[in-house]
């Protein structure tokens, strides 16, 4: 493994994307080169994964000073938490190039850029660097949504962009506040994420900074009630963008919470965790219920994704090891399942020219492979044991019960809510009789089938044999909790309704 | 003694301000500005006297020179304005707004 592998994973796609944009390449060239680059990234990531030794600390560290007077540096590294988000991106993105063949050059170029930027945000070990990538990853989304989106794309574009930028600028202020506080407390400028955990933050300003971070991440995740950009954006965006947004970008929001908020603002976090947890749970239920009212399957998946993100975020707020590990696992599981579902939705839309659930029917009979794959992804998304979706959800619910019984029980309802709309949709789209729209539906081609096959297999493998993955995650998670034993690990909310059910801290 | 000079200077300055904001004729406005500059000059001279050095005089001369340059430009602008609209009312020139 060579030294700068993370840099290559980040900048290879970005540079390739930029190069595609500035050269008059044809769209075929764009697609092929995008595919090659993303496969190259995949190979590198897999190698990285194989060599990752799960020490819990950052690995593959790269460190180049940048603004020495402020301690800002080009500082990369991954641990068990970031590794999986990075992997999710690397594994999933090549599919887009294989499946969607007829898009414009800029589409593929932007995809490449967003892939690199997301990798950068995940690998960044310096807050400023993180912020840079965090913002950069929005730009391709902006252009893809605005250029290649649906008919109502402009308001959606504006909404997501302004919403997200507003959040992230608040985060910038909070980041700077952290750096300055570090300077004040240790008389040294530093913006390294890992150093911030040593900060002793109290008072109102710290609480404001905490919300600066939280709001930024809450918008990205999106956490109720900051989710209102999501239905429009997910629906109007071209499939690949929705895919990127839901499968990976939303996860980076959760990642941000784990990386920044939990270790740094331990006190504030412990104080507001219950509030945030309710926000997660309510969001899960709210979006899940809204999903049932959708006529458009893409929007339904959008709400479903938002609903799942609520539960994923909840895992972070429960502040125990099972829930947090569950969250990270669920991040990957959700990325694979929902991501693939969005791609399938894209295929459905491409082939039938409709997104209305009621216009379809009987596809299972016409396209058994497609239906099979769709069903597996759907079942993973509803958390069926034996698929990837179960492990994470189970651990999150487990942790939530420990954290607060009421929240745990509410979190459990995701088992029911998710399955309602999914089955209903599956029934209307895949079962029943076929009609004019679905009469000539073609099953997945060989290339498409082979494209999706690894992910479908991954979904099942991750459900049946998750331990190899978990063993890479747990050291980092354990480290996270060992860093803040006094506050976070001991915060257990007493259940006001049924005090005798409160789980004791051992 | 100095106070009297200063009072005069300030009164002139204020008159200049009032002229700028109340008059609409371009000429009068420029003259009002000249008045303000001259008020400053008066103050310079007066302070120069107080401090018993000639710096103030030099400064006044500089200001006058600059004022002259400004006035020259102002006249050119006035001519231009007149060419365009045949009027020297500042309110006429409000195409740029909003």
């Amino acid at each position: 493994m060579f030294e700068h592998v993370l840099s290559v994973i980040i900048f290879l796609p970005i540079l390739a994307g930029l190069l595609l944009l500035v050269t008059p390449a044809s769209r075929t060239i764009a697609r092929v080169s995008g595919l090659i680059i993303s496969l190259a990234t995949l190979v590198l990531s897999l190698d990285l994964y194989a060599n990752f030794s799960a020490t819990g600390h950052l690995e593959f560290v790269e460190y180049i000073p940048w603004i020495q007077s402020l301690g800002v540096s080009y500082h990369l590294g991954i641990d068990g938490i970031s590794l999986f988000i990075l992997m999710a991106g690397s594994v999933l993105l090549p599919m887009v190039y294989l499946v969607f063949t007829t898009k414009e050059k800029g589409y593929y170029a932007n995809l490449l850029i967003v892939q690199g930027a997301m990798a950068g945000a995940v690998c960044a070990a310096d807050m400023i660097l993180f912020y840079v990538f965090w913002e950069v990853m929005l730009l391709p989304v902006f252009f893809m949504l605005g250029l290649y989106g649906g008919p109502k794309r402009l308001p959606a574009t504006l909404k997501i962009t302004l919403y997200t930028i507003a959040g992230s600028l608040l985060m910038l202020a909070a980041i700077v506040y952290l750096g300055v506080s570090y300077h004040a407390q240790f008389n040294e400028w530093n913006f390294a994420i890992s150093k911030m955990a040593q900060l002793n933050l109290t008072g109102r300003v710290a609480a404001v900074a905490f919300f600066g971070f939280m709001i930024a991440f809450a918008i990205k995740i999106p956490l109720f009630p900051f989710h209102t950009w999501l239905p429009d954006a997910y629906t109007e965006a071209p499939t690949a963008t929705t895919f990127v947004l839901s499968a990976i970008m939303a996860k980076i929001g959760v990642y941000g919470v784990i990386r920044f908020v939990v270790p740094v603002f331990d006190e504030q976090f412990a104080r507001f965790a219950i509030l945030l947890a309710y926000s997660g749970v309510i969001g899960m239920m709210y979006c899940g219920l809204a999903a049932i009212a959708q006529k458009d399957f893409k929007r339904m998946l959008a709400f479903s994704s938002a609903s799942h993100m609520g539960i994923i975020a909840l895992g972070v707020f429960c502040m125990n090891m099972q829930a947090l590990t569950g969250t990270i696992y669920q991040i990957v599981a959700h990325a694979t399942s929902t991501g693939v579902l969005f791609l399938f939705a894209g295929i459905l839309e491409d082939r039938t020219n409709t997104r209305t659930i009621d216009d379809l029917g009987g596809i299972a009979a016409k396209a058994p492979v497609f239906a099979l794959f769709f069903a597996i992804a759907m079942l993973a998304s509803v958390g069926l044991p034996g698929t990837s979706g179960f492990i994470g959800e189970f651990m999150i619910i487990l942790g939530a019960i420990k954290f607060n019984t009421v929240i745990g029980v509410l979190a459990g309802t995701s088992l029911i809510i998710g399955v309602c709309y999914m089955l209903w949709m599956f029934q209307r789209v895949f079962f029943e009789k076929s009609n004019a729209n679905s009469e000539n539906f073609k099953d997945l081609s060989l290339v498409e089938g082979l494209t999706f096959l690894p992910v479908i297999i991954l979904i099942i493998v991750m459900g049946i044999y998750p331990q190899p993955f978990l063993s890479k995650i747990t050291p980092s998670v354990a480290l996270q909790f060992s860093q803040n034993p006094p506050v976070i690990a001991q915060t257990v909310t007493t259940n006001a309704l049924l005090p005798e059910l409160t789980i004791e801290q051992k | 003694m100095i106070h009297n000079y200063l009072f005069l200077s300030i009164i002139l300055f204020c008159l200049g301000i009032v002229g700028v904001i109340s008059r609409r004729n371009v000429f009068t406005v420029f003259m009002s500005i000249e008045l303000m500059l001259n008020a400053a000059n008066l103050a310079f001279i007066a302070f120069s006297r107080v401090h018993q050095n000639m710096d103030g005089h030099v400064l006044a001369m500089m200001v006058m020179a600059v004022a002259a340059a400004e006035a020259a430009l102002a006249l050119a602008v006035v001519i231009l304005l007149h060419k365009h609209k045949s009027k020297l009312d500042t309110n006429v020139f409000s195409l740029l707004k909003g």
Partner: protein
Amino acid sequence: MTNDLMLLLPLIIIGAGAILLMLTSAFEKLNNEVTAYGSAIIFAVAFLVQLSACISGNAVIFSEAFNGILVVSNFSKAAGLIILACGFFTTLSSQTYFKQNNFCTPEYYSLTVFAASGMLLLTMAQELITVFIALEIMSLAIYILVGYDRKNVISTEAVLKYLILGAFAGAFFTMGTAFIYGATASTKFIKISQFIASHGFSQSPAIIGGSFFILVAFLFKAAAFPFHAWVIDVYEGASAPITGYMATALKAAIFTVFANFLVLDGTLQAGWIKYLFYIAVFTMFVGNLIAIGQQSLKRMLAASGIVHTGYLLIALVAVDSNAFTGSVIAYYLAAYAAGTLGIFAALSYLGGAGEKRKNFDDFKGLAKARPYSAAAISIFLLSMAGIPPTAGFMGKFYIITSAIEAGQIALAVLGIISSIISMWYYLRLIINMYFYEAEEQFNESVPSQSAPICTFVLVICVFAISLYPIAI
């Protein structure tokens, strides 16, 4: 003395160059082209000299020249670099601009260089009357440049407004100078500083009043609230390259001298910080609110210029008068200049004959017809909006860091909120360029390559500056 002259070499080159250009423009054989390139060469030479001075970096931070009237510091050098670069790009953009607009004479370039000489002087000035003279050298040249299109009533109206209000502000400056002179018997910064140190700032009404008036004049030139109203109209009336020039070089010069003046004494700065705080806040927000409703691109950019003035005022509020380096201000000025100049350079060749394209809607669908220009403009806008990895982001980052470091957390947060507000009108142009179908073809050929090249170079600058680290 020789040493002093060496330090002033860029200024001398520019001054001599300006006079030379003025003289040569009497010859009819010298057409606009030659003058344009001539002035560009003058700027380039001066820039390189300044750059070599920066790099060779004589360790003396405060090298006095001319008996303390002028001081060459790293800050002034940096500001000088920015101004010279702005001049360079402005002349080249103008060259292209005047292929489509025919009110140019060779004197135009001479005046550009003259303005630059005033600005350079301003960055170094450490004496109030020198400041005044430099200010007027600069302003008079800019007045003329604003109204250069004599046939155009808009342009004339712009110069009228600018002239009246500028002279009005100038009068305040002289009055303030007179007060300070009255109190301290000197107009040198160093003497004023000594006087305040011995007598105290708040004990001396003349110092308070005088510095107040001077502040007003600076705030006017920098277009801060409530002295901002002119800037919108004047920018609209002026030609695109000159608007860019005003927005960047002039602002750089003003903020340099403003900072120099403000830090001459700690108590002076402390006395005004409270006001500057509110002014900064109002400037940012008023600028934003004006920008929102604008249909004309230049008016929007003018209003956004007001907002950026607000950010720079944050930096001013946050400066530490005891260890003043001005690096944050200089960095922000450079970052802002790169973005703004870039846009105006692009407008110089995209505006069309007689600047027929000036509204947001006129640029709909530009990305299809001219993808590279649209991309460049987008990058500039993103830089102005402060989106990484552009220079504008780093500038904003430094400003916020310095503000929080100085304990001005509220100001930092308000600055952030303001940039959230500003996001929409920047994105609006990008959206117009990219996400709409073209209403026209943009098919006229670009008359000359210098403005496009400027645009391209500035794109590189936007990224290059962002990588350049500074010390706070």
